[in-house]
């Protein structure tokens, strides 16, 4: 399968490991990524806060380039913020005539043009969960992640806003859970899986940001997660790089490695850890990874309806229902 690939600024440096591991598993899964030539920053959540039309123009230049270079009509972004900005621009331009006309003129000034809807903007998680599919993933597993307790963490911008059509539930997404289960990991029912890491709040009010991070770390720890699997550079950066700050600020002692789900996939696919960018995380993942065993754990006690005699029957879970 062939996709146009928009790495985004983070993957160039701070989230290098995300990029490397993505490329590594792409090989195993037979995905071809064609990087968009001379792409520019998507504007993150900042640019749109200052100026609307330039913000959309900035994003749309990338869409225009991707469409023109036609590597594929499917444009993939591994970074949640980039993914949403690209998708949103494509959506609103199709919907809002006035904005569309302005952007057309702006692009024209750069000798470019873009027809909304001509690209299908996808997040990396979507193509792996939906286009590739769980069966194929399971087929690639050489070293199952037995006994590794992972908290699947989606963050905000992939599941939400669902208005433009989301491939997963905006409140209770399950695709990452399913991927990790197929890798053999023990996936915890992480209540905060789609809660917010604070985004750029670290730059605006550290107080606020640290509290948001604390909630996530505490809850993951309460569920005895060995690590948190993310799919967004911003989430990874905040949870990883500020973990010390959180501990210092709240007098806690969290040591939860934050890794990209692609790194865990690569590991399960039997690829060497150093080719997956392990080691670049600040809270080291090594101790957690050492917990991985060869034999499968006994299946965790699933809540049967009315286990104990006194118990009242439970309604079936949404997934089952």
């Amino acid at each position, binding site marked *: 399968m062939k996709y146009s690939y928009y790495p985004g600024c983070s993957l160039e440096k701070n989230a290098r490991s995300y990029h490397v591991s993505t490329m590594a598993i792409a090989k195993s899964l037979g995905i071809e990524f064609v990087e968009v030539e001379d792409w520019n920053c998507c504007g993150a959540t900042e640019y749109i806060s200052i100026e609307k039309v330039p913000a*959309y123009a900035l994003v749309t230049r990338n869409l225009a380039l991707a469409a023109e270079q036609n590597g594929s009509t499917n444009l993939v972004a591994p970074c949640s913020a980039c993914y949403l900005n690209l998708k949103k621009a494509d959506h609103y331009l199709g919907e809002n005539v006035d904005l569309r006309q302005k952007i057309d003129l702006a692009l024209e000034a750069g000798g470019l043009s873009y027809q909304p809807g001509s690209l299908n903007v996808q997040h990396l998680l979507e193509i792996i969960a939906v286009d590739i599919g769980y069966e194929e993933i399971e087929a690639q597993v050489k070293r199952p992640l037995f006994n590794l307790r992972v908290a699947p963490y989606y963050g905000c911008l992939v599941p939400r806003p669902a*208005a433009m059509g989301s491939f997963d539930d905006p409140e209770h997404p399950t695709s990452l859970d399913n991927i990790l289960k197929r890798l053999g990991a023990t996936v915890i029912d992480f209540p905060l899986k789609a809660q917010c890491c604070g985004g750029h709040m670290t730059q605006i009010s550290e107080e606020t940001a640290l509290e948001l991070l604390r909630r996530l770390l505490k809850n993951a720890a309460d569920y005895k997660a060995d690590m948190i699997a993310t799919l967004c550079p911003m989430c990874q950066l905040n949870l990883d790089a500020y973990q010390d700050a959180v501990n210092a600020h709240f007098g806690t002692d969290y040591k939860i490695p934050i890794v990209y789900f692609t790194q865990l996939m690569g590991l399960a696919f039997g690829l060497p850890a150093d080719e997956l960018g392990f080691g670049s995380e600040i809270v080291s993942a090594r101790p957690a990874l050492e917990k991985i065993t060869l034999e499968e754990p006994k299946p965790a006690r699933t809540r049967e309806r009315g286990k104990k005699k006194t118990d009242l029957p439970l309604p079936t879970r949404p997934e089952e229902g």
Partner: protein
Amino acid sequence: MTHTVTSRPPTLFDNVIAETPGKALNLHACLQCGTCAGSCPSGPDMDHSPRAIFAMLDAGMDDEVLNSNTPWFCVSCYYCMVRCPQEIPITDIMYTLKRLAIKEGYYQEDKAPEFSETFCDFVEHNGRSFELGIAMRYHLRYHPLGAFKMAAGMGLHLFRKGRMDLTPSRIKNVSQLKSILNKAKELGGAA
């Protein structure tokens, strides 16, 4: 969603709707139910809850709205937006409020605008951002102590891990980007 058009001069309420893409007209249908404020991760730090902001807009308390820190504390998690029973694009409205506040020259010192602006002129000159570099520069510019704390806190870590550099990468066709952005600014005005 039909809304009767009147001849009176546009209020801030009208402008917010006009400047927000998507189903912004739904703002008229706000039930004041508080789902947005109840869902907001950073809500407790806002001086007015998003719901209150909408009520204030309706009441014509324009200064208070534009002075409010509410939009600046929005972390764009979009929970309010997916949960709103009236399908109001709340997160997008928060972006609009930020833009209008800047346009009207409101906003508190050493808050988000500078960070955003730092970010933006970076992008405009290089075509690429590199958050950490920007963060550093932002802190050095606006609160050196903060910057020191940062560096001490995480900056060094990242430095050691080779995840941070202070030289941004540049795109080839910066001139093309510039002409696009300049045209866009000319068309878009501040908001």
